[in-house]
């Protein structure tokens, strides 16, 4: 694990806010500006999505972001350079590269670790690489101090949950609902016993993602989890302003609008963020 990951995520003393954006959506410059904005909004880490033609785990909002980024040829190599660019502009949160397995495979696993080090990447999340397929990558991640983030879902059996949590790195990503990423108004009631199950099994912070788009949901989660991941709700705002974000003269204004919207919709209660929720609900 990198020092950044340890400081901002694993040892964090507050409810984690982990935003997701797609690299190159709509342009590389916009991605760097969005990352800096999210840092100023109080994010604790950034998930940077690598666009892919066949994103099996993603709903329509992030699929559309992928298409926008692919239209100008965004790729993993370019995305890693973006992280470096963010760093030079003052971004010091951990960055988790979110990429489908095939993109990583074609890039080359060894090359990924070389570049990850040079570009100050902290984590890796491969949504279509379940525990059973990830052993060798997990070992390599440990060796290179990159955290391989594992997902667990409400349908994950106790036996697998234990195995996944025992080998987890960085934090545990709980999928709040079945199906794909995307905004949902409310959580299924089954999510709470599921989160309790994960908290029992996990030694690392437990963050919840898929479907989070309102501060009410965040407030609900605070009793059960250590953090929340927001993807589609941010990417949808980006998508609505894709033209302005691509235009350097209008970008700053668009970024401010997104910031205000996210602050209003998701984070207004942020000042009340409680310390890590562990044991609180017991």
């Amino acid at each position, binding site marked *: 694990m990198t020092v950044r990951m340890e400081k901002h995520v694993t040892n964090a003393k507050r409810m984690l806010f982990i935003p997701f954006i797609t690299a190159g959506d709509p342009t590389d410059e916009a991605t760097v500006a969005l990352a800096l904005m999210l840092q100023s909004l109080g994010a604790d880490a950034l998930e940077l999505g690598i666009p892919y033609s066949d994103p099996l785990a993603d709903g329509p909002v992030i699929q559309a972001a992928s298409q926008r980024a692919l239209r100008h040829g965004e790729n993993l190599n370019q995305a890693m350079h973006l992280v470096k660019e963010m760093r030079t502009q003052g971004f010091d949160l951990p960055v988790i590269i979110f990429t489908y397995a095939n993109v990583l495979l074609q890039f080359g696993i060894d090359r990924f670790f070389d570049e990850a080090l040079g570009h100050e990447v902290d984590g890796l999340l491969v949504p279509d690489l379940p525990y059973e397929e990830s052993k060798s990558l997990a070992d390599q991640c440990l060796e290179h101090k990159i955290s391989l983030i594992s997902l667990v879902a409400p349908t994950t059996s106790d036996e697998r949950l234990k195995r996944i949590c025992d080998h987890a790195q960085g934090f545990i990503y709980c999928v709040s609902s*079945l*199906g794909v990423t995307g905004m949902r108004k409310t959580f299924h009631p089954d999510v709470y016993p599921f989160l309790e199950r994960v908290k029992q099994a996990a030694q690392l912070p437990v963050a919840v993602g898929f479907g989070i788009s309102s501060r009410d949901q965040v407030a609900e989660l605070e009793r059960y989890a250590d953090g929340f991941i927001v993807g589609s709700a941010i990417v949808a705002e980006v998508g609505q302003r894709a033209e302005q974000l691509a235009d350097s003269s209008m970008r700053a204004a668009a970024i401010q609008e997104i910031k205000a919207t996210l602050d209003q919709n998701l984070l207004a209660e942020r000042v009340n963020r409680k310390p890590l929720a562990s044991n609180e609900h017991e």
Partner: protein
Amino acid sequence: MVRQAQAENKYRTDEKGRFADFGGQYVPETLMHAVLELEKGFKDAISDSSFLREYRRILHDYSGRPTPLSYCERLSKTLGGAQIYLKREDLNHTGAHKINNAVGQALLARRMGKKQIIAETGAGQHGVASATVAAYFGLPCKVFMGAVDVKRQALNVFRMKLLGAEVIPVHSGNGTLKDAVNEVLRYWAAHSDDTAYIDGSVVGPHPYPMIVRDFQRIIGDEAREQCLKQTGRLPDAAIACVGGGSNAIGLFTAFLDDSVSLYGAEAAGKGVATGEHAATLTKGTIGIIHGMKTYLLQDAYGQIKEPYSISAGLDYPGVGPEHAYLSESGRVDYKAITDDEAVAALLQLSELEGILPALESAHGLALAFKVAKTMRREQRVVVCLSGRGDKDVKTIMHVLANHERRGKRL
């Protein structure tokens, strides 16, 4: 299926669904429960003789199995090489081999207590087979189909609706087969508690390549027995077309341990050098798509390329992982056949034998003609005639009209 426990272990998937390094379960965690449940359900069913009896009974009573092995006397004489025999999957109910697998998986769905069937389809053949068995078993059925394909294949869309299925156009990605597969997997992840996904080919995450293989191997098992009975010995070669590759695996499985040469015909489209083809094993590279590691058509960054073939059923950017393995191990020889070669073979079979094959099957035929010509007259070739060509008549009319305009003969 009776023979499956025998000496074929060399070519069997391992516990984790691997054919050497190919195959696997590259799916999101949200799908793991579904594939693990299916794996358990299938292993349980396939070792239950009453399940197998019911599967064979339905294929016999409802689909008309066994399908014949037809000797093509005039064709063989004209080609002047090995004698050609056709395994007549076109004579199945719904006109293609797809029904073998659809019956098996629907039966499995019922056994596992599922209340709904979902399926993907490209050209519509597997969609029609799934809609058919859904009607037979009285289960509701949703067929996911790329929006572009919905337009291109209006007749099959209508057939599925007649059979009571709901056709869901998929607008994501390019709106083609690969996107329909993504979408059906996304839907399945959210609904696997009461929904069975009927995968149409030997592709997708484990256990699908194994399940579809085991439900299609009836093709080769019958053909092997028929060939022994009709000719007194095994064929010298067996040949089939390969898109995802289910009819080919179905044929090959019975012959893997015999000294029978095996050939697979991929779609070369307008030529493998043109970029407009679906020749995954000839021109593809190793990668991951739809939950499996296999050969696929992709760019240097791992983005999936859209394949092309005149035959909609071969128009898939990946290929079954077992084929990737059989290709790499050298057991099966895969060759690419162009649109023009396939159409020429289709015309020749129609004229000489009175059998109109599907364009997919015509790729296998075209390769068989090439191979047979290099063989002696006392040798025998079995070709899987995977489907009938009625569905392709419009396409063939267009092709012939174009050729006539350009004053060219095929």
